[in-house]
């Protein structure tokens, strides 16, 4: 494997991880709508068809339930299907297969048959995409026992986490924030080293308040930390990265240190994954808190068409206001 030093985008890192995994393991199969000749509508699978052939890179008919269902069968045979569902909004037709079968296969065969598939899906708003192209459904899967749910937020973490997802013996929902696909570049060595699933990443250490987020909202969360720093407030920023399993230890340790917490996510508020984190904090760290936990989330509405995306997606101003509330600065 070549050790690249050129900086790459998140979508290129996904591509690099897929190529590495396919090279390393002949059982890895990539399938989905437009993943072959076109290399995916976001180019995440570009070049894979040429490199690995039409036997392993499958342009499927247009049907998500079919993609998920067929992946379950392949996975049961020990193949490692990595399917792309074109946008998270179009995960919905596949939900029956994923929630009725993929996540239950191991349990209902009492460990006899596993389901090591990966569902890759771009998610979230902010790129002026049409209706149904900007959804964030992490909670739907977090609420469904038997799968893992991973959210990439940088090129390096996308590379390492995707490799881990592909090597994992259970179904993994791998969410890629479209807004970050080409936003940042990083040098990502193509070393085949996976990052552990179930671990959160402390992106910035701080003492006064803990800011917790994942996916594209990490961008605004980090900017908020910068703003707070200008005002002499030191914020710790954590990328949850693995929604399930959740690294509660890292989250709790931080909140116990700062006593204040703001959780930021793009999905609607009610039953958003922020609610789960807030519940865990109240169960296990309530005596460390000096202020109520705050959530900055999408509103409880269908994510609006793109003109109002900005008003919907948690902004620095909203995160800042929430952080100041925990600091009693308002």
């Amino acid at each position, binding site marked *: 494997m070549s050790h690249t030093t050129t900086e790459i985008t998140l979508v290129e890192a996904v591509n690099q991880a897929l190529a590495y995994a396919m090279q390393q393991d002949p059982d890895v199969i990539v399938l989905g709508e437009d993943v072959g000749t076109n290399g995916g509508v976001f180019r995440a699978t570009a070049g894979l068809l040429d490199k690995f052939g039409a036997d392993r890179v499958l342009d499927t008919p*247009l*049907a998500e339930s079919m993609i998920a269902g067929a992946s379950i069968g392949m996975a049961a045979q020990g193949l490692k299907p990595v399917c792309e569902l074109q946008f998270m909004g179009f995960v919905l037709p596949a939900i029956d297969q994923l929630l009725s079968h993929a996540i239950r296969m191991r349990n209902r065969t009492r460990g006899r048959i596993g389901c090591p598939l990966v569902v890759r899906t771009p998610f979230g708003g902010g790129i002026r995409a*049409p209706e149904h192209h900007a959804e964030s459904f992490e909670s739907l899967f977090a609420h469904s026992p038997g799968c893992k749910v991973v959210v990439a937020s940088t090129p390096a973490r996308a590379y390492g986490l995707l490799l881990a997802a592909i090597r994992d013996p259970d179904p993994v929902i791998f969410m890629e924030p479209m807004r970050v696909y080409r936003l940042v570049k990083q040098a990502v060595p193509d070393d085949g080293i996976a990052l552990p699933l179930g671990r959160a990443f402390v992106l910035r250490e701080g003492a006064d308040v803990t800011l917790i987020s994942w996916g594209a909202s990490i961008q605004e969360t980090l900017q908020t930390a910068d*703003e707070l720093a200008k005002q002499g407030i030191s914020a710790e920023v954590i990328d949850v990265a693995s929604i399930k399993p959740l690294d509660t230890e890292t989250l709790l340790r931080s909140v116990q240190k700062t006593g204040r917490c703001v959780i930021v996510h793009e999905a609607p508020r009610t039953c958003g994954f922020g609610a789960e984190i807030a519940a865990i904090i109240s169960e296990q760290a309530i005596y460390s808190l000096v202020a109520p936990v705050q959530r900055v989330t999408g*509103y409880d*509405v269908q994510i*609006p068409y793109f*003109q*109002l995306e900005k008003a919907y997606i948690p902004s620095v*101003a909203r995160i800042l206001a929430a952080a100041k509330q925990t600091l009693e600065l308002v």
Partner: protein
Amino acid sequence: MTEFDSSSRFSGKADKQYAFVIPHYQYLDKEGKPTQSLPNFAQDKAEMLRIYRALQWIRHFDQKAINLQRTGKMGTYPSVLGQEAISVGIGHAMQKDDVLVPYYRDIGAQYLRGLPMENILRYWGGDERGMAFAGLSESEDFPLSVPIASQCLHAVGIAKAFQYRKQKRAVVVTIGDGGTSQGDFYEALNLAGTWQAPVVFVINNNRWAISVPLSLQTHCQTLAQKGVAAGIPGIQVDGNDVVAVKQLMQEALHQAREGQGPVLIEALSYRLGDHTTADDASRYRPAGELEQAWIEEPVKRVQSYLSHQQWWDDNQEQALQAQIQEEVTAIVDSYLTTAAQSASAMFDHLYATLPDDLKIQREQALRFEGVSL
């Protein structure tokens, strides 16, 4: 025609067999010459001029929409270039009280059913108001559907309501060739067949589903034959021939309204543009295919027919183009001068009455509206 005979694969002697015929219809060939005796409407100059005008109008509007996207004034847009005859044929065949359940390449039918086209621009321009059907609020037509094939089932439900109320009305639902791979499509065909529901299903077979060619979508020789398994008549029409589309649609709609059940129409066309403005077909479209498809395109053949009939000349053409240009420009201007919507828009129609907790969220959204950072 190639034979499809399941008995050829098995050794025994079949004691029964069933045969199915899928016909293909064309009235005007690519030069605009009649291939069989034409229906009355096609011999009616005024009607054919109306149809031609609609085709040209849609082509013009479509190009404007692409330009708006290219200049950053609109979002992603799916062009209908090359498929105008399907949508215009549908629009011309429907009666006012029929219901249209469109997908995203049906602006011709929507236009002919009276939808002020600013709505279309607003929708693709990321404005909630695009779905308000401003200027056509009494319409029972559905808005276009983005989740592929889901609309097919809605159409059968609407048709069931017509049946239940003993109304002589019909539903038209459209879908792309790729969409026929979805379960919802088959479920809808099956249900419509079982209920003998007054639905006409129209497949716009433009040969591509983004980058996936029909050959990777199905092993079937035709998509029309998918009706056979549901007990529904399936036919193919030349989707570049607006006379064929309108004629077959009219017959199918009439049958549906008269209680003779659903029909599946596969209209063969070609996507002359990219899938949407976010796509680049040069990445996957084989060389030469586009050039060939342009020879068959639907607008020119009507123009040729009109000329053969001596119903049309260059002056008329220029006058028409100028008129359309003016109309479309007015629509674009109206779109571009639409005042921005408030953040309240994402809450306004979520429920008949907005619950109190959401009123609090709406206030918060309004408070942060326009706050920089």
